[in-house]
C-alpha cells in the first residue's frame, strides 16, 4: 500500500470513529455516570458530568425535577434530551428530586442544602438554577425565601412552569376537581390529556408524581416584586399544562420594583419563527426541542450581563 492510501484509510477510520462518538456523546446516558447525594431525608441530588470539555467558563446548572413527569424524560429516550444536550456543550448538570413519598414542599425546602452541595462540588463556578415544569414552582419558592444561599445563584430560568392557576378550567383547578390523586402515574385520562403531545402524534411524557402544587403565589407578591436575579420564563405557545396565562402575570410582577431586573419572556411558537407551536411534551422531548428550545436555554445560561 502506498503512503497516500494508508493516510486516506486512517483518515476515513478516524472520521467514522469521530462521527459515531459525536452521536453517542449527545445521547450519553449511562447510569454509571449518575452520582446521587442524599439531601437529608427529603431529596436526592444527582450529578451529570460534562461529556465534552470546553475551555469556556461554563456555569453549572442545577435543575429541579419536573415532578409531573418522570425525571428519565430529561436524559433517556430515542433522541436528544435536555441533560445530555447540556452535558455535550460543556455544562455539568445537577438534578434535585424529592425522595419517594415526598412532595413539592420538600423539594423547595431541600434546595438550600442542595445548592450548598453544588457549590462545594463545583468550586467557584457560576451556578444557574433551572426550574422544569411544575418543579419550577419549588425553584421560585426557594427564591422567595430570600435566603442567604440564593445570592450564590447567577441567574434562573423556568421552562414550562406555571405559577398562577386561579382561573376557570386551569390544569390545577381541574386536577383538584378530580380530587387530585396525588400521582399522575395512576394515569388518569385527565393527566394523559396534558402530557400527550397533540402536535407530534405518539409523543408523550411518562406521568410522574406531584403533590401540593400551588394554585398561585399571590401571598408572596411583595417579595416577588423585589427579586432581582436575572430570570427567563420560557414556555410553549400551546402548552395547556403550563399555559402563558399561568405564568405571564408572574413574569410581569417578577422584579417589578427595579426597572433594571433582567427578564426574558419567550413563548415557543411559530410567531417567534420556530418551526411549530410547542406544547408541554414537545418542550422536553421532541426532535425540534434540541435545535430550537435548548439553545435558548443555553444562551440564557451563558449570559453574564
Amino acid at each position, binding site marked *: 500500500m502506498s503512503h497516500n492510501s494508508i493516510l486516506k484509510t486512517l483518515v476515513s477510520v478516524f472520521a467514522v470513529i469521530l462521527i459515531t462518538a459525536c452521536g453517542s456523546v449527545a445521547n450519553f446516558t449511562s447510569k454509571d455516570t449518575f452520582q446521587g447525594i442524599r439531601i437529608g431525608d427529603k431529596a436526592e441530588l444527582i450529578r451529570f458530568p460534562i461529556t465534552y470539555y470546553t475551555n469556556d467558563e461554563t456555569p453549572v446548572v442545577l435543575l429541579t425535577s419536573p415532578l409531573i413527569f418522570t425525571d428519565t424524560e430529561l436524559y433517556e429516550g430515542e433522541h436528544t434530551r435536555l441533560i445530555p444536550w447540556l452535558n455535550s456543550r460543556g455544562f455539568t448538570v445537577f438534578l434535585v428530586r424529592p425522595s419517594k413519598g415526598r412532595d413539592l414542599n420538600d423539594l423547595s425546602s431541600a434546595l438550600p442544602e442542595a445548592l450548598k452541595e453544588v457549590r462545594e462540588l463545583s468550586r467557584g463556578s457560576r451556578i444557574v438554577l433551572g426550574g422544569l415544569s411544575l418543579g419550577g414552582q419549588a425553584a421560585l419558592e426557594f427564591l422567595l425565601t430570600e435566603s442567604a444561599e440564593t445570592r450564590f445563584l447567577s441567574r434562573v430560568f423556568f421552562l414550562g412552569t406555571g405559577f398562577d392557576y386561579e382561573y376557570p378550567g386551569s390544569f390545577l383547578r381541574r386536577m383538584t376537581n378530580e380530587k387530585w390523586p396525588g400521582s399522575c402515574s395512576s394515569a388518569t385520562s385527565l393527566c394523559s390529556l396534558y402530557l400527550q403531545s397533540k402536535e407530534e402524534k405518539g409523543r408523550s411524557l411518562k406521568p410522574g408524581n406531584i403533590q401540593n402544587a400551588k394554585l398561585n403565589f399571590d401571598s408572596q407578591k411583595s417579595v416577588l416584586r423585589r427579586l432581582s436575579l436575572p430570570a427567563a420564563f420560557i414556555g410553549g405557545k400551546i402548552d395547556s399544562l403550563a399555559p402563558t396565562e399561568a405564568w405571564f402575570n408572574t413574569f410581569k410582577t417578577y422584579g417589578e420594583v427595579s426597572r433594571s431586573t433582567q427578564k426574558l419572556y419567550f*413563548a415557543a411558537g411559530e*410567531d417567534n419563527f420556530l418551526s411549530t407551536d410547542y406544547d408541554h411534551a414537545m418542550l422536553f422531548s421532541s426532535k425540534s426541542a434540541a435545535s430550537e428550545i435548548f439553545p435558548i436555554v443555553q444562551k440564557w445560561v451563558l449570559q453574564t450581563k
Partner: protein
Amino acid sequence: MKTFKIIILFLFTLFAWSCVSLEKHGTIHHPVTRDGFKLTIEHFPPIAKIKRNYPVIICHGLLSNRNYWKAKEEQSLVSMLQRAGYDVWLMDLRGRRDAGDTGWWFGDKTFTYNVDDYVKDDVDTALSFVLKKTGAEKVNWMGHSMGGMVAYARIGHYKENRIANLVTYGSPTVFVPLSRVLMTWNNAAPGMIIIPSVPIKMAAQWGSLAPIFIPSQFRVMLYHPENTGYQMERKLMWFATNDIAKPEAKQFLYSLNAGELVSAGGGFSYFEELPNIKIPVLTIGGRRDHLADPASVRASWDKIGSDDKTLMLLERAAGFTDDYGHTDMVMGLHAHKEVHPKVIEWLNKRDTPPPPVEPEATEQETTDEP
C-alpha cells in the same frame, strides 16, 4: 405565442379557481357619526318564533370589516343567532369600503381616525341607531378582537349603559411582550411616515389567490390554517380585510409597547378602567391565538368588575377539536358546532330584563262609607 397562451390560461385558471363568493346579505343602512363618517350596519331579522329581548350588534376587529362574521353563510354566527330568535345588526366601523372608499389624501373622508374615535363616536352611533330602529332599551354586543376592545373601552371609560350583555372573542386589553413577528411590524413602523394607511386590503386580496405562498409565520398570526380551511382563508383575505389608518396603527403600536390598551398618546389606560364593567361578560380566548394571547384575554377577564363573568378558552385540553387561532374562533371549520352554540346558550340565559321592581306595600286608608 404558445408560451403566452399557456401563461394566460394558467392565470385564468388560477383566477377562476381562486374566486370566492359571499352569498349572505341583509338590509344595508348607513348611519352617520357626529364627525361625519358613514358607517355600514347590515340588518338580519330573526327567523325564529322565539322572542328575544335585546337585539345583537356584532362588531369586527382590526384590519378587517364585517364580512367574516357571515362568511360561513348558513353556518355563520349571524345565521345561528337569527335562528335562535335574535335581531342581528352587523356593523362596519368607519373607513370600510361599503360606506364609501376612504381617500389617502383627497376626498371627503381620509384615514385620519384612530381607536379612540371608534370608541367615542362609532360605538355611540351604532347603539343609538339600533336602539332607535328596534325600540329596545339595550343591546347585546358581540365583538371580535378590536370589536370587543372598543366595547370594553366604551363601557369602562364612558360608563356606557346601553349594553346589556357583552361577548368578546379574542379581545385583549393587555399585551404580552412582542413576538418576533410583531417586532418586525413594530420595526417597520417608521415606514408609515410616507403613507396615510397600511395597505392591508390590496396585499390580502393578492394573497388570496394562493394563501399557501404567504409565509406561515404571518398567516398564523391571523388564524390557525388547519382549523380554518383553504376556502375560508381565501374568503377572509378577499372579502374581509381593510386598510389600517395610520393614527389607528400608531395607537396600537403605542399600546403594544406600553403593554396595555391606552388612549392615543397614552393619556389614560382603558385597561385600568375595566373594573367599571359590571354587566355580564363572556370572554373567549383561543389557545393558538398569536394576536390575543390567552394570557392577555385572561388578564382582561381578571380585571373586569362584573360578578357575572365567564372565561372560555378554546383548546383541545378543554374538549375542543383543536387549539383555536385568532379568527377561526369566528369562522373556523368547527366554530359553528363547538363555539357559537355555547355563546348562544350563554346569551340566552342572560337576555332577560331584570324583573320589574314591585311597589312597596302601603297601609290601606280607611274611608267613611256612605
